[in-house]
């Protein structure tokens, strides 16, 4: 007994001398470091402030700052300000948007397209997510999901180009249709809203698939079995059980895809045509020319940002109401 205690005591001494020798031990015994730590940990409040001050400054200046500066520039008549010229605040840049069809038409087109493409993505990926979550064994799920993830690591431009090759007049799709004898001459798929839609759905599908998959995966299978025992058919089970309980996944997937598809610039430039000019292209136009158009561009970007935010907020409210109504 006493032997044991003694050996433990020597171990403790050993441990102490070892602490003194390690890097960390030496650091915590180093007097400037101890003085610094004394200052930092003087009170929990001070410790928290030191931890919080950098993140707070960063998000204010780097995350919020660019957006606020964009709004501020959108309210000025000239930016950057030439020397000797006084800068005035004005709403003219916003008035310009409503004044001309070539501005608000792309705006509404973008919102309608983005909404439509989001819906297409949902319809396309829901069965895929359902299959993954329900019909693939847990062991294989990651493998099946990984297979779909690989192409999504490839960048926006490369994938847009891949769609151009697929849909071109001498592209793969036209070649297949022609050799099957379905068409005589190539269908001009490119530079239409169709090609743009295929491209955007191709780019955003994953952002829909992942939220849907995680919502479906969380849903216990027993719910469906219970509904089946109570005599519900497959369609009723889907409509009354699966769909309402995955609304959260649907809502976050749609929000993500909608926001992403309103922001595409290169894809509509490469896949769209003159009849499919998006608002992103309109906005970008103001930044290609000399600096004096920047305030208008900033105003248009602000309009688009708030429109997208309001629409997604309304959509989420709707989905929430739907969910609550259904589970009552």
């Amino acid at each position, binding site marked *: 007994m006493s032997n044991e205690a003694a050996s433990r005591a020597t171990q403790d001494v050993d441990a102490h001398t070892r602490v003194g020798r390690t890097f960390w031990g030496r650091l*915590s015994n180093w007097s400037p470091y101890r003085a610094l730590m004394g200052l*930092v940990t003087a009170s929990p409040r001070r*410790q928290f402030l030191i*931890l919080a001050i*950098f*993140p*707070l400054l*960063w*998000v*204010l200046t780097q*995350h*919020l*700052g*660019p*957006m606020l*500066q*964009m709004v501020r520039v959108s309210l000025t008549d000239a*930016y950057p300000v030439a020397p000797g010229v006084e800068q005035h605040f004005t709403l003219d840049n916003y008035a310009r948007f409503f004044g001309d069809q070539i501005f608000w038409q792309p705006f509404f087109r973008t919102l309608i397209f983005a909404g439509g493409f989001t819906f297409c993505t949902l319809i396309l*990926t829901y*069965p*895929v997510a*359902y299959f993954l979550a329900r*019909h693939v064994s847990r062991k294989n799920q*990651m493998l099946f999901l*990984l297979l*779909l*993830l*690989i*192409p999504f*690591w*490839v*960048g926006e*431009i*490369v*994938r847009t*180009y*891949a*769609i151009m*090759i*697929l849909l*071109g*007049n*001498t592209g*793969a799709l036209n*070649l297949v249709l022609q050799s099957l004898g379905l068409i005589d001459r190539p269908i001009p798929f490119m530079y239409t809203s169709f090609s743009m839609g295929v491209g955007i759905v*191709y780019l955003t599908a994953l952002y829909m698939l992942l939220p849907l998959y995680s919502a479906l995966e969380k849903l216990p299978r027993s719910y469906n079995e219970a509904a089946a025992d109570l005599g519900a058919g*497959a369609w009723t089970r889907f409509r009354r059980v699966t769909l309402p309980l995955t609304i959260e996944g649907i809502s976050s997937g749609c929000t993500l895809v909608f926001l*992403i598809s*309103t*922001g595409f*610039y*290169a894809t509509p430039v490469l896949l769209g045509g003159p009849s499919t000019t998006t608002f*992103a292209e309109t906005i*970008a136009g103001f*930044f290609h020319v000399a600096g004096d158009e920047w305030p208008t*561009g*900033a105003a248009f*970007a602000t309009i*688009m*940002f708030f429109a997208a935010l309001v629409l997604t907020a309304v959509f989420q409210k709707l989905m929430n109401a739907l969910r609550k109504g259904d589970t009552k």
Partner: protein
Amino acid sequence: MNRGNRILLSCVYWAFVLYVFVPLILMILMGFKDSKFIGFPIKSWTLDWYTGIFADAEILSTLGYSAAIAVLATLISVAVGTWIAVLLEGRKFWGRTAIFGMTVLPALVPGIISAIAFRIYARYLGIEPGMGAIVWAHAVHNVPFVVLVVMARLSTLPKSQLEAARDLGADPIIAFLRITLPYLVPAILGASIFCLLLSFDDFVRSFFLGGYEPTLPVLIFAKLKSGMSPEINAIATVALVLTAAIGIWAERFTRRMNKDTKA
């Protein structure tokens, strides 16, 4: 009936796999076509486009430029993102929701608007378009992803470990460096790879904040606007192979690390 459903759904899944893979495979094939014109059918094959791009100093330097930007931006994002995650995870304080909202903001702003806002702000801060501006914009844009990944991992850190360290006399910084940080390594590595890929593949921010030297996606875009050629396919294939290889490796690596720490 359930069986029929299952077969139907598996057909949908494999059709979806085809939909995501076929365009990329076609694009890769076209890079081996022995003709200047893009289009099917491909009658003869060549490797000339590849030997061409690997002999082209401009393309190689663009590749290096893109990689350097991605690495620098990732280092910044990871450091800042980890710090923010440590502040936000498991702490309740006044204004936490507001800080969290501002943290995820850059990830939610649609691409073109984010690029425009960064362009204006860079001018305001006096950052000239070029490498510095791109690194800064990519770093800010990627911070939210790091924060979310690190926060998820941090929430599973057993509190008792930190308490034990504090009881043994570790101050907050040493406890962070010796307990929290090693525990976060898998999340930090995973987030780093994700940031590297996001930055390397980013077009819209690089396009609006770049100077005369293009990044790889901007170079491909510029070449595409002046006409399609199998040379672009070869460049795009190199970019594709690089990103997919890094992605697959990271996926396996993080899975293995997660398994190790769980065991």
